[in-house]
């Protein structure tokens, strides 16, 4: 599926960022082409979650250097909602709960907002109901979850499945999964991973931020990057992840 002639979706060049005056990212370089799956691994505190938040535009992080091009646009100039409109999606490690707003109403609001920005048609509640029921099958989600309030009272696994359902609805060009595997039991992990695999096409790409190799048993990465101290210190293929699993992170050096 990968070929060097595939279109470049994301180009990160020498990206540096800080939070509350502390430098976290110290010169990240990363190229993601259409059809690719990139895994970003690394010990706690290496900056991998920060990278995903900076790409999605979290306001608490300050970009101190470098640039990020996304399909020809300077991503760093856009507020987070416009990054979403452009096709960037972040699956949260800790999705928030919105009591009082049903999952289907929220998904429809997000869907119609994006449709308006992308020049597509709005769906009314009935049309959306059909659409969302079809999409829920991707993450094997019971339709009753659509009537429940967004993430309220959801288990960890249900919240993560709901994130992938949102990804299915918003149809991003670049999906960033921030520790989507954390807190999942083996069944939930399989369902979430299958969902992501079903959504992969030759026109989109996935960046998976993860601490553990086990997610990569289900979603095969084309590239594995190891982060440490705010930099990508090693890039390899799937074999690198297996090696990290047996040997840990300590042996990897820039």
């Amino acid at each position: 599926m990968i070929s060097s002639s595939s279109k470049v979706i994301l180009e990160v060049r020498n990206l540096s960022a800080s939070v509350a005056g502390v430098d976290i990212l110290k010169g990240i370089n990363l190229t993601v082409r259409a059809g690719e799956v990139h895994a970003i691994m690394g010990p706690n505190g290496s900056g991998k979650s920060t990278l995903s938040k900076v790409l999605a535009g979290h306001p608490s992080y300050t970009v101190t250097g470098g640039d990020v091009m996304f399909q020809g646009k300077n991503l760093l100039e856009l507020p987070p909602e416009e990054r979403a409109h452009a096709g960037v999606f972040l699956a949260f490690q800790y999705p928030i709960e919105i009591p009082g707003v049903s999952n289907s109403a929220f998904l429809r609001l997000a869907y119609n907002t994006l449709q308006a920005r992308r020049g597509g048609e709005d769906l009314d509640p009935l049309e959306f109901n059909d659409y969302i029921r079809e999409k829920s099958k991707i993450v094997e989600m019971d339709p009753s979850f659509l009537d429940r309030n967004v993430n309220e009272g959801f288990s960890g696994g249900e919240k993560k499945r709901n994130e992938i359902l949102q990804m299915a609805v918003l149809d991003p060009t670049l999906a960033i999964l921030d520790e989507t595997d954390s807190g999942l039991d083996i069944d939930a992990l399989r369902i979430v991973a299958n969902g992501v695999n079903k959504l992969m096409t030759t026109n989109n790409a996935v960046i998976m931020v993860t601490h553990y190799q086990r997610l990569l048993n289900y979603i095969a990465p084309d590239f594995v990057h190891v982060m440490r101290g705010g930099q990508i210190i090693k890039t390899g293929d799937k074999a690198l992840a297996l090696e990290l699993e047996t040997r840990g992170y300590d042996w990897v050096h820039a």
Partner: protein
Amino acid sequence: MSAVMQSVTSHDSYLTGLLPATVTAQTATPEWLTALRADAAQRVRALPFPTTRDEEWRFSDFSLMCKTTFAPAIAAATLTTADIAPFLLPEATHGRLVFVNGVHAQHLSSSSLPQGVIVTTFTAGLASETLRTHLAQYATFQNEAFVALNTSHAHDGALVVLGKNTACATPLHVLFVSTASTTPVATFPRCLIVAEPGSECTLIEDYVHLSTTRTASTYFTNAVTEIVIAENAIVRHTRLQRESSSAFHVGHAAIHLSHNSVYDSNSITFGARLSRYNLNIIQNAEGANCTLNGLVLISGRQMADTHTVMDHTQPNGNSAQLHKCIVDGGAHAIFNGKIFVRKDAQHTHSTQSSRNLLLSNKGRVDTKPQLEIFADDVKCAHGATVSQLETEEMFYLNSRGLNANTARNLLIYAFAEAIIDKVPVNSLKQRLSQKVSSQVGEVV
């Protein structure tokens, strides 16, 4: 200087000026009621007008109302059912009592309830032994000037009696309508709800206004509600204060709980320039259950003060309270929630949470949850937060493509909706959601 001093001290006689001209003029008023009203009037003369020097009124300064002279309302304005249509609840067509400017409007009311349910006025129920047994027994006026003032006017009001083991399937709606008038009017709504053993009902106590002009009308509502819940009885009480933004509203509710009774309260405050709601609940026998939900949504120069007292005096009681305030503009919300767990109230389980959302840097919230425990084997927890919208929550919604304004509206809506969702009447729930949407901006 001396003029200022004088105006401060002169407030003490302000409430006296609001006393009824004569207490005995009503036809067929029983002696006991005349005596009760005279007693209450006596207390109004003796009690000072509350000031911010009183601990219980520390943050709510009502002296502004003393600038206005309120006249007692005389007769019901000539309203038709069409005029009040926006407030009518399709679920409650069988039991509706409407008062216009404090006076019962028979032609707007309806009562076709199952046997065992009585919804009537004091005037019609004056001969009733129930009225005599219960009226003014729970909302005591010895030390409460506003309760005393209301009691001094107690000749008409809503009387609801649920007979033994009677479940009223449809909600009962007591609607107090204030209309625009040339002179500011004072009204004294009064409700007595008696739920006999094993009975069950849903009650909507509703304060609304009808404006014919663009300017908000100034009036004063001084309300008192007493609810007596006998053993194994259930009362679900939704109290809605949506007065005009220039109105003054002081309301008291006194709830008396017996063995294994259930009381659910949703108090929702949107209106009035200055408002105060005192909700006092006493659990007087073993094993009563209380759920207290509160929502205050105010803006501009509004002030809303909610004081609640949950008094567990007997064992095995439960109470769960969640009070939420959303404060925009230069508004000011106050919450004071006291929970007492008396020496004999072992195995009480009580929680209290005060959650406040400040939407502007000119708004203000004062919250004081208080827990006083005298028993040694109880489970109690309380807490309060005052916050602005969370960065993390905003970012989550922004990352889903919603702009800052929509995300903000959605989060405020969700904050309010968690309480509105508990209102047990669907048509009312929908209208309240719409009201919140229209105030914070349409989102879903």
